[in-house]
């Protein structure tokens, strides 16, 4: 490099005492000249730069927030709650992708005929059931140990997580059902069963571990619907009026059991 900025020029630049043209020239030069850059080090305030560095270190050391966490904090949730919620395995992008894929297959199957639609209606309520089972518990939850030490009661955390999972699965399934071939009552027939299965899973997990509870409820659901479909005459028998009432009743029963046995969620699940 043929030309370097002398000290007087840099001092003038730092003080704002040079014309624009020379400032342009100097700034372009600084981009390419390490020695003139280090000459600047004496001119910019040392304390100011050190304080800025301390801030940078602080921010760099702070743990990165996941997407779910940021969304929740934007919605007004407190930091620690958002962090525990954001760490839920069934609120991660990969989980949503899997749910979306399953729903997509279900919708495609529905276009193949009524049996396909039945498969969709059987599958849709299983999604929140699986999601809630995957939301807590020692085997699955990466924050389980942390959650044990958290100031928030375990039951409350579980309810918050289950609520979030249920809402998100329901919203996704709702969007998927808009693409079903028939947009009649069948498009929403999975809603109450979803609620019923989820609460049944939670209720049963006061006795068994969550994954096993969800498994039992899931199997019972699939078997039950298929059996009813075989034995009863109208199609989608399990989902018609009486069926929906049964699901509503089951949902309410599940909620009551969960409420009555909520202290069971505080104990570690090491059975």
């Amino acid at each position, binding site marked *: 490099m*043929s*030309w370097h900025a*002398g000290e*007087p*020029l840099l*001092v*003038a*630049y*730092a*003080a*704002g*005492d*040079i*014309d*624009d*043209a*020379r*400032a*342009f*020239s100097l*700034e*372009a030069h*600084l*981009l*390419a000249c*390490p020695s003139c*850059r*280090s000459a*600047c*080090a004496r*001119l*910019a*305030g040392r304390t*100011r*730069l050190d*304080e*800025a*560095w301390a*801030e*940078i*270190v602080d*921010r*760099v050391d702070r743990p*990165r927030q996941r997407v779910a966490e940021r969304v929740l904090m934007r919605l007004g949730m407190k930091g620690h709650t958002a962090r525990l919620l954001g760490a839920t395995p069934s609120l991660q992008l990969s989980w949503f992708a899997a749910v979306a894929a399953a729903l997509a297959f279900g919708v495609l199957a529905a276009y193949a005929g009524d049996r396909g639609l039945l498969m969709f209606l059987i599958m849709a309520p299983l999604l929140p059931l699986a999601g809630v089972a995957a939301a807590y518990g020692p085997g699955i939850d990466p924050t389980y140990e942390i959650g044990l030490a958290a100031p928030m009661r375990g039951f409350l955390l579980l309810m918050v997580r289950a609520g979030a999972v249920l809402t998100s699965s329901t919203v996704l399934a709702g969007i998927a059902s808009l693409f079903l071939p028939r947009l009649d009552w069948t498009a929403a027939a999975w809603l109450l069963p979803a609620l019923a299965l989820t609460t049944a899973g939670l209720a049963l997990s006061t006795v068994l571990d969550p994954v096993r509870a969800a498994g039992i409820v899931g199997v019972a659901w699939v078997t039950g619907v298929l059996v009813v479909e075989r034995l009863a005459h109208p199609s989608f028998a399990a989902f018609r009026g009486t069926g929906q009432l049964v699901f509503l009743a089951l949902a309410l029963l599940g909620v009551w059991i969960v409420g009555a046995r909520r202290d069971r969620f505080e104990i570690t699940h090491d059975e």
Partner: protein
Amino acid sequence: MERADERRDEALLAAIAEGDRGALRILYDRHSPWLLLRLSRRCSDPGLVDEVLQDTFVAVWRKPRAFSGRGEVGAWLWGIAIRRLVDGLRRAGVRERLVPRRRPSLEGLRPSRWAGAAPSAEEQVLLAVEHGDLAGALNRLSPELRAVVQATVLDGLTTQEAGRLLGIPAGTVKTRMMRARIQLREDLT
């Protein structure tokens, strides 16, 4: 006294990508002074300038591989910093716009009249040789035109970004650039 680290900036970025905080510190020590000076010439709010400086290096820590490998690392850092400044000014509103820190009485004066910053005869010759009388022509532009030239040509901003930086509509940036070009061309030919 420690020997100053002799790794090139690109090598420091590679180390930062591996999580080496010491490398970030070295990069910071090398580049924060001139970044601070250059930012301060575009924004009179020291709080915002500090924030932009921090944002820049936190961004470098998070995505060191965003540097394409082409050109100078310093230019890449400036690109991050100026865009953060544009965003910061847009959020801060009209209050803290670009304010030249030059003393107004020095506007348009020939270099030899400035106390303490008189370029040496060599520098004057070099400037004349390197730039024709571009320096003089640039200085003869009005401040608004010069500001637009600085933002688009020197800082590499788009017309939208330049508008946000200077607090003017993008259309005004375009017309001022056109006027600046016309005036420079007339002045230099």
